[in-house]
């Protein structure tokens, strides 16, 4: 049981990181029907910028508590990533908004390559360490071990997701976003500044990605300029799993994917009597994705997507 509990914890933490990144994919898709493949790279940049800022702070000042450094690094990363998200939309996607959807998709892939290579030029090809600003503390819960960092990651992502849901549901910006998602033209006829709403969507998505990037780097202790690719792909799968375009769906999809991966890697060997093993960790996640797409193409919670596409 302690092993099962441990796998649940592993999956939950992994899942909350996926969920945060998945939100960025799903929000943009919901409004523009564009799969922003550069989003994974924004996550990577979030991690890199956060680490660079923390390193700079640690070398230039002394005696600042680790948590304060972490908070400052997170804030800096969010701020820069918001700028990146905004300019990404302004430079790469807005000029193509009337163009066929394929053009925007290819641009997104192109931007992803550009951002990855920019990061490689700035930070080099080395793995980058997360600065030692968090002292890891372990708690034993019925045989399973949970660290303070894991608790922080789950709580912070839950808070951010609730905040996002509240923003979409109760603020005027959220109302404008929902209106734009239903129909861009009607929304603009109703006096909504569609360009501003789309910019805001990208900015919010990028700031969530920044947090996820810093979390991911802190959790595994490393960052690398290629880390955004796999993370982005998994998060995209999570968004599709939950129903792309649907915000609670992305959260559910992220958490589920994390749990599936973790439990799959942990128990697949046992369940199949050693026939399949943990080398099918990624396969099982994508297998579930295929199952969902075959049986319920709109994803677990997505019901609007079918009629729109």
């Amino acid at each position, binding site marked *: 049981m302690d*092993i099962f509990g*441990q*796998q649940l914890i*592993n*999956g939950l933490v*992994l899942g909350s990181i996926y969920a945060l990144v998945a939100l960025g994919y799903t929000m943009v898709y919901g409004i523009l029907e564009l799969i922003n493949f550069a989003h994974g790279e924004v996550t990577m940049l979030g991690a890199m910028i956060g680490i660079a800022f923390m390193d700079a702070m640690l070398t230039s000042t002394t005696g600042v508590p680790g948590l304060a450094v972490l908070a400052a690094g997170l804030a800096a990363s969010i701020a820069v990533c918001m700028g990146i998200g905004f300019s990404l939309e302004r430079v790469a996607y807005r000029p193509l908004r009337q163009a066929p959807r394929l053009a925007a998709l290819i641009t997104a892939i192109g931007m992803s390559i550009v951002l990855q290579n920019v990061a*490689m030029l700035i930070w080099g*090809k*080395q*793995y980058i*360490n997360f600065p*030692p600003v968090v002292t*890891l503390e*372990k708690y034993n819960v019925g045989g399973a*071990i949970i*660290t303070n960092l894991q608790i922080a990651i789950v709580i912070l992502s839950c808070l951010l997701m609730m905040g996002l849901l509240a923003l979409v549901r109760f603020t005027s910006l959220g109302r404008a976003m929902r209106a734009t998602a239903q129909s861009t033209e009607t929304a603009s006829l109703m006096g909504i500044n569609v360009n501003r709403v789309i910019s805001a969507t990208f900015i919010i998505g990028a700031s969530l990605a920044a947090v996820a990037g810093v979390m991911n780097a802190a959790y*595994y*202790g*490393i960052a*690398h300029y*290629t*880390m955004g690719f*796999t993370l982005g792909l998994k998060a995209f799968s999570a968004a599709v799993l939950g129903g792309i375009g649907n915000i609670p769906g992305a959260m559910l999809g992220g958490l589920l994917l994390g749990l599936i*991966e*973790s*439990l*799959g*890697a*942990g*128990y697949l*060997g046992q369940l199949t009597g050693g026939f399949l*093993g*943990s*080398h099918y*960790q*990624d396969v099982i996640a994508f297998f579930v994705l295929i199952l969902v797409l075959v049986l319920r193409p709109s994803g677990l919670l997505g019901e609007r997507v079918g009629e729109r596409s």
Partner: protein
Amino acid sequence: MPLIRLVTLFGLAGLMLAGCGQKDAPRTAAGELIIRIGSVAPLTGPQSHLGKDNDNGARMAIDEINARGVTLGGKRVHFEIMSEDDQADPRNATIVAQKLVDARVRAVLGHLNSGTSIPASKIYHDHGIVQISPSATAVAYTDQGYKTAFRVMTNDRQQGRVLGEYAVKRMGKRVAIIDDRTAYGQGLADEVVKAVEASGGTVVKREYTNDRSTDFLAILTTIKARNPDVVFYGGMDGQGGPMARQMQQLGIKAKFLSGDGTQTTEFLKLAGPAAEGVTASSPGLPLTKMPGGSEFQKKFTARHGHIQNYAPYAYDAAHALVAAMIKADSADPAKYLPALKALEMRGVTGMVAFDDRGDIRGGAITLYRVRHGKWEVLETVSSAGAPAGQKR
């Protein structure tokens, strides 16, 4: 304007002649014959730090050789390195290999990984191009029987045996094994499994990951349930570092053991405090014990900074190649191949001499352990008693 026409005509003819000359024998401005040598390693992606290291080692050797000046068949020659990036990906490796063949290289130094060296070696073999890998250690690389495939590093059969025996005799009988499913990681892990079982230990769990992952909590949790004494990882430092950290995070008491893929300075950085007490092996002698180690380190550090791992081997591979060419007085692979087979050269890593299969003769394996944030030599095990050629 007949004069201008005449000049133009002569000029054009001159250009065409120059063009003809260049077609089959490119020359430098100084009139030296250019001999192209390929150097392949992952220059982008998660293993690019190691790839760049190999490339730098090969380039340093070639630059020295060019500065010294070499004459082959009565002509001054200039060696030119063509660096290619295989991204540690077997598919890319074959594309890059074909590209080098098309560019008519006379030899290839590389690739870095076993998984890339093996598929590429067929292409080089089919075109009669000599390949010397500085760092591919999988047994399968020279097992294919290609006359053109060489390596300057001891193979995983020897390394795996040393690791497995050490694990059981010095660290504990219950061993859990993880590998990254690459030709190198899987091959080494398979050899360790054999050695563990042969020396009376038990493999309590075998788990798998890949060479791009950073999350090992799920498989480590499963391993924890089996209470191993030792966790062995067959793979590279980019995974080994986070794995050591995550073992500590899960409170796994077992000791971490690994092969040469993680015996790097990068591992120390990535594992942080969790690196302490980690044991890993590396083929060959430690840098400080290599006959030309300290001198090499001085030269290399001045040019490129830290040595990651395999640069001295790439350096020796390049020198061995040119030494064979000089001996045969030709850069034609068919002519210098016998000279390479018979070569005995004092390199910075030790004696460079190949057996019938292309494996290095009588290499050593060194075990290291991290103490106070540094790799310290535990012991060097000579595999001279069982040279690669006799074990088949």
